[in-house]
Every structure is written in C-alpha cells, then in structure tokens.
C-alpha cells in the first residue's frame, strides 16, 4: 500500500531531520510510529502526506510512484494530475484536529467529498451521517467545532478524513492534545477502524494503545528507524539499547 525508500528530509538551517528511512505498510496493516520528541516522526508523516517536499528518496502509494529520485540526485514528483489522484488516497488526522471552525460538523465532513471528489451533495450528506453514527456523534451534526470537546473534535476529524475514502490513514498523536479521560473515545474509534482492516499509520505516545492495536511498531530516533517489529517483540524484548532506554522511561512515567 505504501513503500518508502531511503527518505531524507532537512529544513533550511537544520541538520537532517529524517535521514534515510525505508519501510513499507501493507494493506490492512496498522503501524504505530513511536520515538522521543524531535526524532522526526511528524516530519516523516508530513512528507508522506505531501505537506513537505523530500530531499531524497522515493515514495510509492499503491504501487504508483508519488516521488522518486533520479540517479543525478534530482527529486522528481509525479505530475500534478497524478499527485492529485494520489493525494485522494491519503487521509490525515492532526494532533490539533484542525477542524474548519466556520463549518458545522456535517459540513466539515461533506465539504471535501462534494467539492474535491465531486460527490452529489445528498450522497455526501448520507455518507457523513453514516460516519457520524459510527463515531457516536449523530446528535452533533449541526454543532460547530467550538461546541465540541477535544475527544469529539478528534472523532469528527477522523470522520472528515474517512469521508474521502482514503486507502491509508495517517494520525499524528491523535490523543496527545486530549485530557486522559477524553482519550478513550478516540482510541475506541481507531480500534474499530483497525478491526475493519483500515490501513493506518499512527504516531503515538500511548504505548499501551500501540501495544494493543498495532500490527507492527516502528521506533524512530534521531531521524532514523532504530528498530521495528511486532508489539510483542518490541515492547517485550527490544533488541536495541536505545529502544530499551526509551521504553524504560515510559514505564517510569506510568509509575510502575
């Protein structure tokens, strides 16, 4: 579904932030991306969703090249038309939700299907209501984002992304802006999506969640993938020293 090869990314005036990352995500797989603050997780996700241009490497979505690098080192993005199609396959849920404050919940969900995907408004509304039911917010269709709690906002953001029927859904710390009590609602929705075989990549600090829902966990540090594997292996008996330190830290926070 997604293949990343030797991806590099730096910002003007910074050292490389992502340095030679390669991995792939198979259809229906849920991958959790963990790692300390500043390790480049968000940057990686932004490169995959075309919010940042990469410096080197290649990304393939469903087999089609989104971006490749010529032997000369020149980075070649797919033509605009192709990129537009690829973009429709990718959904993203932001840490801060980024709902459109001037639209009702319903319109937040229907706006893109109607104006980007060209779906008839009636159909888009039906789809939106169906998604709202699924995330347990049918009664909030006419509310505005400022009237929602954090957990509700995040669930709407998920519905908004799902309405475009993406092939793969990215989450950047979907619960870290939420009070612990609100976190539960969002995690439940993600768990259900996983059960429906949605392909997902989740940057998260919720180790417990990563452990429970991910098929595979990738641990990143200093712009590189240090270790990856099933949750059992990665949490149970991490091979790498750095991973062990990081997870030890987590266990300490949890107070146990």
């Amino acid at each position: 579904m997604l293949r990343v090869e030797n991806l590099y990314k730096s910002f003007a005036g910074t050292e490389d932030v992502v340095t030679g990352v390669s991995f792939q995500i198979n259809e229906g797989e849920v991958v959790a991306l963990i790692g300390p603050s500043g390790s480049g997780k968000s940057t990686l996700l932004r490169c995959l969703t075309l919010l940042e241009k990469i410096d080197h490497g290649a990304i393939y979505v469903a087999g089609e090249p989104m971006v490749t690098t010529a032997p000369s080192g020149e980075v070649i993005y797919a033509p605009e038309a192709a990129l537009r199609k690829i973009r429709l396959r990718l959904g993203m849920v932001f840490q801060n939700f980024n709902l459109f404050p001037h639209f009702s919940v319903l319109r937040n969900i229907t706006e893109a299907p109607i104006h980007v995907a060209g779906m008839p408004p009636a159909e888009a509304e039906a789809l939106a209501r169906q998604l709202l039911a699924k995330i347990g917010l049918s009664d909030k269709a006419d509310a505005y984002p400022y009237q929602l709690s954090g957990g509700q906002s995040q669930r709407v953001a998920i519905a908004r992304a799902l309405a475009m029927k993406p092939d793969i859904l990215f989450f950047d710390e979907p619960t870290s802006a939420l009070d612990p009590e609100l976190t539960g609602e969002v995690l439940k929705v993600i768990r259900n999506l996983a059960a429906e075989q949605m392909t997902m990549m989740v940057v998260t600090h919720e180790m417990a969640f990563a452990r429970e829902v991910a098929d595979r966990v990738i641990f990143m540090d200093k712009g590189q993938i240090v270790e990856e594997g099933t949750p059992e292996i990665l949490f149970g008996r991490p091979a790498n020293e750095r991973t062990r330190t990081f997870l030890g830290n987590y266990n300490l926070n949890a107070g146990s």
Partner: protein
Amino acid sequence: MFVLEYSTQLLKQVALLGSGALTTLRIFFLTLLFSLPLGLLIALARMAPYKWLNLPVRFYILIMRGTPLILQLIFFYFAPSAILPEGLRFTLPRFTAAVVAFSLNYAAYFAEIYRGGIESIPLGQYEAAAVLGFTKSQTFFRIILPQVIKRILPPVSNEVITLVKDTALITVLGITELFRVARNEANRLFSTTPLFIAGLFYLFMNWIVTKVFDAAEKKLSYYR
C-alpha cells in the same frame, strides 16, 4: 412665530444638506465597492514570495498611507494631463478621478488589514485543506477567507467610519457633497449651525455603519 420660522428654516437646511449627502453616499459606496476587492489583491501581492511583486506593492502602500489623501485626489485629477507626454494626455471626469483616488487609497489600508487577518489564520487550516485535496484557490475562498472576514471586521469598521468622514475631501476637485453644502450655507448665512447639522449627518451615517458591523459580527458569531 419665531420658533416656527426658525424651524422651517432648519428643515430647509436639513433638506439641502440631504441633497449633498447623496453625493457623499455615492462616493462612499463606490469606494467600498472597488477598494475592498482591490485591497485583497494588494494584500495577496504583498504576501507573495516574489520580490519583484512585493517591493513595488510595499512602496505603493507606503505612499498611499504616508501622504495626505487630499494630495492624492489632486494628483489623480490633474496629473494625467500635466505629467504624461503630449499624445498620451487625458483627463478623468472629476468624480471618476475622486473614485479612483479614494479606491486606491483605501485599498492600501484594507490591504494591510487583510494581510493581518490572513496571517492570523493558523497554518493547520491550510494543511488540513491540502490533505483533503482542496486546490489552493478552493482553500483560500472556502476555508481561509470566510475566517479572515470574521477576524477583520473590527479594523475594517474603523476604516469605514473614517471613510464616511473622509468623503468631505472630494470637494477639492470641485464636487459638491455634504460638507461643501454645509460650508456654503455657513458662508451664506454667516453661521456655523449648518456645519453642526452636517456633523449630525456624519454621526448618523456612522451610527448606521456601526449597527451594520455589529449585525455582521453577530451574524458571524455562530462560530468561534
């Protein structure tokens, strides 16, 4: 008897001033009509990442805000025939010149307001729109601009209130409007009363402006 005569005279004056107010209103509405969209274009040019576009626009804004509007009025009326080379000279009708000068001047002010508004919209809104596949122009007109409008209502209302009062400047081009009528009456009757009646007219117009903006603010307060 005296009071009656006095009040008929007052009524007469109010009617006279009212006729002047029509010109005031015309220049007011035409200026808004042109300067509001033009200001948006200028703001976008000002924020563009191209120096060749950017620098002239900054200069334009500096001149327009840094020099008195009255000079700009004189300039746009007299300059085309005074400065241009022989064959190219032309003269705008005086009202047209006034509308041009006002629109270009106010567009500069509005541009800076738009810019502030646009820059205050969080980047996340653009990113969310981009990931959903909205084009740049869809993003701007569907997502960003509606939010900008809500945020810039207060400073825009300030400028509009100033515009109501600035309309009096067009008299320099020989156009008769509210304040000119009041001054003529003041001269003829040897009294400042007409000037203060004109003041009430301005106050009334600005009261309406305030109400309109209050209503707009209320209308847009459905979200935060």
